């Protein structure tokens, strides 16, 4: 008998609830602030036979929407081929190998077989970003690694928990290879406890509705999720859409990397082709396939936020494997920039390709960088070594409804930036400024949001500054006639001399002494629509708030503003705009 739609709805929300509870348990109990505060984690339920995504927590980090099913699938395949141990009840596998359905090494996945009547009914898996995984750079975000071994410890799927007991020997190996190891036991326990919570909740769901009903519902929900995605795809006029986005450089070779995307609507599916993208690179800006796919999925979910996170919803998104490009990295290509930066360029290409087809729901490009600035040094006052991370946001793209958000977080994350006061408490630094970056929003009918500008001084001791950012060479793209947002800027002042990294947005280990300071400007969002159609009163308001100068109002928006207090010269503005229109 076919399931009634109400039972389906209720089981759908029941499965979602299981995952949301796992997410909450993981975050609340986690030690790593990356997990606890920034929610850099995800929990879900995956099919027993192929790891297909059944449900995933709504509060998981967007970049994980697509990766975890590949990770679980790879594990299942390795068990079948004998490359991973046979599962038993209460086992938990640990794996962080990027090439086995992962992201970067810091994202550590746990997978637990879920048994009903002695058979694996499904897998419960989660991912958490550990603050360190060894390797040459504390925290793992290298700007110049040339092989994965330099990026840290790589674990194939091994059982960290065997029949419910943690393997102390494996744990000891891990702890001997990572920094601040003593606190990781807290994350390991939180991560495994979350899977236990999932098991208890899933037991309750299955006991209530019956295993067969739930199994049937899962199959049906998958079909319906695909239908839902196809209904959205139908809004895209048939045809082919192309866009490119560029990574500044790989951190080693100073040349841009191109994400070249073609999207074709074929019937009721969307086909994504990245095959014309740049070849694999020497530096850490390669992306593994799972991350490349996930980047496309998350971009589509940003466009259609109501589609469920499920394998079915992704089925109509057909991604041709970009063989031979930097978006399909193989061992031993370094990959530490894939989750934080390359993923966001892929998403930007998706937005740029589809904004003309879907102008109401796609925005101009957002800043799209995680803005990693790491400062590692020694504080002579406390006689302790430290690693400080400053992540930061930038402007979002303008859109059909309104101007872009100022200082939004990365596309792939949902993390809060740390407070200046907390940074100054913890590290020997002083922020001289933390300000809205004036003029950075791309001009448009709806302008981009503004980036951030900060200046931080080293107060004591010596330190090394590292940057893994992007958009230093090319600003976030405008759409439908809008201008690009301002590019990212990094400038280091050493002994009174200004230094700009050769790669603009990436460099590792720049030595600093007390009194030196670092100045970062993050990108503004792309503008949306013709800036000369922007309402002059809105331009005036932007000038009065100091977002743009009167000169910028003139050159970017063709609005003439003068006097104190500033007013619009209507006649001059009309003349200027008419002249501009005539030229076009």
């Amino acid at each position, binding site marked *: 008998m076919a399931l009634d739609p109400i039972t389906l709805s*209720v089981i759908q929300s029941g499965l979602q609830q299981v995952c949301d509870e796992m997410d*909450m*348990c993981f975050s609340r109990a*986690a030690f790593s*602030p990356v997990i606890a505060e920034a929610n850099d984690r995800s929990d879900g339920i995956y099919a027993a036979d192929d790891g297909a995504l059944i449900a995933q927590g709504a509060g998981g980090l967007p970049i994980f929407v697509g990766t975890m099913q590949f990770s679980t699938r790879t594990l299942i395949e390795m068990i079948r081929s004998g490359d991973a141990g046979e599962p038993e009840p209460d086992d938990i596998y640990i794996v962080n190998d990027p090439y086995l359905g992962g992201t970067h090494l810091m994202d550590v996945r746990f997978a637990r077989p879920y048994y009903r009547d002695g058979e694996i009914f499904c897998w419960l898996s989660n991912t958490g970003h550990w603050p360190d995984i060894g390797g040459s750079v504390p925290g793992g975000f290298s700007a110049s690694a040339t092989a994965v071994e330099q990026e840290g410890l790589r674990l194939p799927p091994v059982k960290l928990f065997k029949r419910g007991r943690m393997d102390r020997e494996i744990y000891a190996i891990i702890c001997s290879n990572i920094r601040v190891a003593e606190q990781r*036991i807290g994350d390991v326990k939180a991560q495994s406890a979350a899977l236990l919570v999932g098991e208890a909740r899933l037991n309750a769901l299955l006991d209530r509705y019956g295993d067969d009903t739930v199994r049937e519902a899962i199959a049906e929900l998958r079909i319906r999720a695909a239908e839902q995605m196809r209904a959205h795809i139908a809004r895209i006029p048939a045809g082919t859409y192309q866009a490119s986005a560029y990574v500044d450089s790989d951190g080693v070779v100073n040349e841009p990397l191109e994400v070249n995307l073609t999207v074709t609507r074929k019937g009721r599916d969307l086909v994504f082709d990245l095959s014309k993208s740049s070849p694999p690179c020497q530096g850490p800006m390669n992306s593994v396939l799972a991350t490349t796919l996930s980047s496309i999925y998350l971009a589509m979910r940003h466009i259609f936020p109501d589609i469920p996170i499920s394998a079915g919803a992704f089925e109509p998104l057909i991604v041709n494997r970009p063989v031979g490009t930097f978006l399909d990295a193989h061992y031993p290509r370094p990959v530490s920039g894939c989750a934080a930066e390359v993923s966001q360029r892929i998403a930007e290409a998706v937005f740029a390709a589809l904004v003309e087809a879907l102008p109401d729901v796609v925005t101009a490009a957002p800043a799209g960088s995680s803005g990693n600035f790491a400062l590692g040094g020694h504080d002579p006052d406390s006689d302790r070594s430290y690693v400080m991370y400053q992540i930061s946001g930038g402007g979002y793209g303008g859109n059909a409804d309104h101007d872009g*958000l100022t200082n*939004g977080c990365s596309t792939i994350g949902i993390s*809060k930036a740390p407070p200046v*006061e907390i940074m100054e408490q913890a590290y020997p630094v002083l922020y001289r400024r933390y300000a809205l970056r004036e003029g950075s929003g791309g001009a448009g009918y709806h302008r981009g949001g503004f980036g951030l500008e900060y200046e931080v001084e080293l107060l004591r001791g010596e330190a090394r500054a590292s940057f893994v950012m992007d958009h230093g060479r090319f600003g976030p793209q405008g759409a439908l006639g809008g201008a690009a947002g301002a590019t990212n800027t990094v400038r280091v002042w050493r002994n009174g001399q200004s230094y700009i990294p050769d790669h603009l947005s990436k460099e590792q280990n720049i030595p600093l002494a007390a009194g030196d300071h670092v100045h970062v400007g993050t990108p503004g969002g792309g503008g949306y629509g013709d800036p000369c159609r922007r309402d002059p009163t809105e331009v005036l308001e932007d000038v009065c708030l100091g977002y743009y100068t009167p000169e910028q109002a003139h050159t970017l928006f063709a609005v003439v503003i003068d006097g104190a207090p500033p007013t619009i010269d209507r006649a001059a503005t009309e003349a200027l705009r008419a002249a501009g229109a005539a030229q076009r």
Partner: protein
Amino acid sequence: MTEYGLAGGIVAGVDVGGTYTDLILLDPATKQVRLAKQPTTAVNQAFGVLAALRAVAADLTSIDLIVHGTTTTTNAVLERNLCRTGLITTAGFRDLLELGRRTRPHAYGMFGRFKPIIPRDLRLEVPERMDATGTVRTPLDEDALRRAVRQLMHTGCESLVIHFLHAYANPTHERRAAAIAAEIWPNGNITMGHAMLSESREYERGVTAAISASVQPLLTRYLDRLRTELSERGYPGEILVMNGNGGMVSSHFVAKEAAKTVMSGPASGVMAAAYTGRRAGVGNLITYDMGGTSTDVALIRDAEPAVSNEIEIEYAMPIHVPMVDVRTVGAGGGSIARVDEAGLLQVGPESAGADPGPICYGRGGARPTISDANILLGRLNPDKLLAVDDPVSVDTVRSIFARDLGDPLGLAAEESAAAVLQVANAHMAGAIRMVSISLGTDPRDFALFAFGGAGPLHATALARELGIPTVLVPSRPGITNALGCVVADLRHDFVNTINAPIDAVDLDRVHAIFARQTAAGERLIEKETVGISEIRHVFSADMQFVGQTHLLRVALPGPTPDRTTLQSLFERAYFDRFRVELSEIRANLVNLNASIIGVRPPVDLSSLIDPATREVTLAAAEIGTRPVWFAGGWQDTSIYWRDRLPAGCRIEGPAIVEQMDTTIVIEPGNIATDDPDGNIHIQIVGN
């Protein structure tokens, strides 16, 4: 000094909500209770308050105490109808309030906006700087400060915030700046960033201060007006205002820390629930307040509402002062049901709100909502709806359900309405579970306290879904917030950060902080002109394992805990919450909290339902029967009138109990009993 509100005096509780102004007038001597529900007057809420007093024919000269819950500040913040307010801050940091610790409004979707509380042109900088230890790096430029103050005055600001970096560590610059500003500023509306919240995190502290400053003049004006209106009509006493912490404060002091009133209404509802539960012998409650547009949930343990210092009233708008932890979990009666592209029934998040509202309101609403489903299934009596403009027939509702939901789902109209309730209840149950487990509790250990206009309609179904054994419906569910005003205590909360490992913390310092907090609270309570029966002290500590960022609040037995007590209470609380034992890692003592509570004399609630209206037999309380849809079919169901129920009666479901302001659904198999205060306890048989 005259003390008002002592046992014996008449007390009025007035709650001004978004739609209605509710009033309870209680005379403890005669046990007489008078109730009123009047439309809220948006422009000047005082008119609604006066209308409510008129409606109960109150003799203002005989009222001893008026306690007031207000949404003046809530609405002002949410609608950004704020007073022109200026900010003076540390050079280099004027954009803090605009940049925030920004994420984005929705996890998915690149749309969404954010409007700072104070616009950029009213945010000025002056040279000054403290470092994180509270040491001066740059002295305060007093001339620049004077210039900034004058500039803000000239642009017409009527309120001023002075917010400097690290002022929690050393407030000297903020205090000096406030003193200088006070010489020039035309009124007393000067708010220092560290005054209400002396914790690090410049955004949260700054927003709390900015919200407070920009509603302070509004609240002052409103209360002045109300005070004048009331005293002109002969009211001799004091007006107390409910704070978001569930305690009340004199209207003369409250505006100084106006941000604390932003969650006043929801907090007083929870306080009423705690009070009602305590009298009924039910200490553990999950409060469930469902209205037209949203549903609020809070947790009460041992008759104490959970409190949080980290409430966000909307996206990126934190108010970090201790407040009753009320969570909005989405759906209300106006939530819209639709069939999505996957052919699945979805309820919410879209809402018809109050305007146009559900179809049955007759204001032009044309899409099926939860309220409409309740009408169609006979749970709600269409003739008894409040606030209907132009009556709509049940047939119209039925045909819309058939067209929009039934046909695409292959169900009859009534079946589709039942499905709407089932899906909506599943969602709400999930949301309530998340609130409960986020606070480390299993919902099955609680009773569900249902109030608000729609709470008692859904409570039994939700309890069944959540495994909750009992539903408690207070005697006056629709005016619970006003009841909270009547029963509220005086309350002052303190938080001090200590941040040291338990095994190394200076215990003398811990004890001294608690002693200081206690003395400060008792001093404040003495200043109030309100009679109290005793002073209660509640102490707790926020703790975490070293390296963690989340805090766990642990109740302490007294103000002089020893090291072993701290360690063992924390470990037990941690294990209870996370089922994880971590003896490997040291624990940190982060904050010390004290609540000093001036307990008001007990209030007898037994006449909230007038004994004179009660009948002797259940049959006499029955006002009719109608078919009501339960579990897949119509059942002929008795309808009772709440005020007529005989004292101590027992009702077996299915049954519907109607009263002025709500409808209670008792499902088949449930057993409901009436208690001496007129609360109905519904036992969910099988849970």
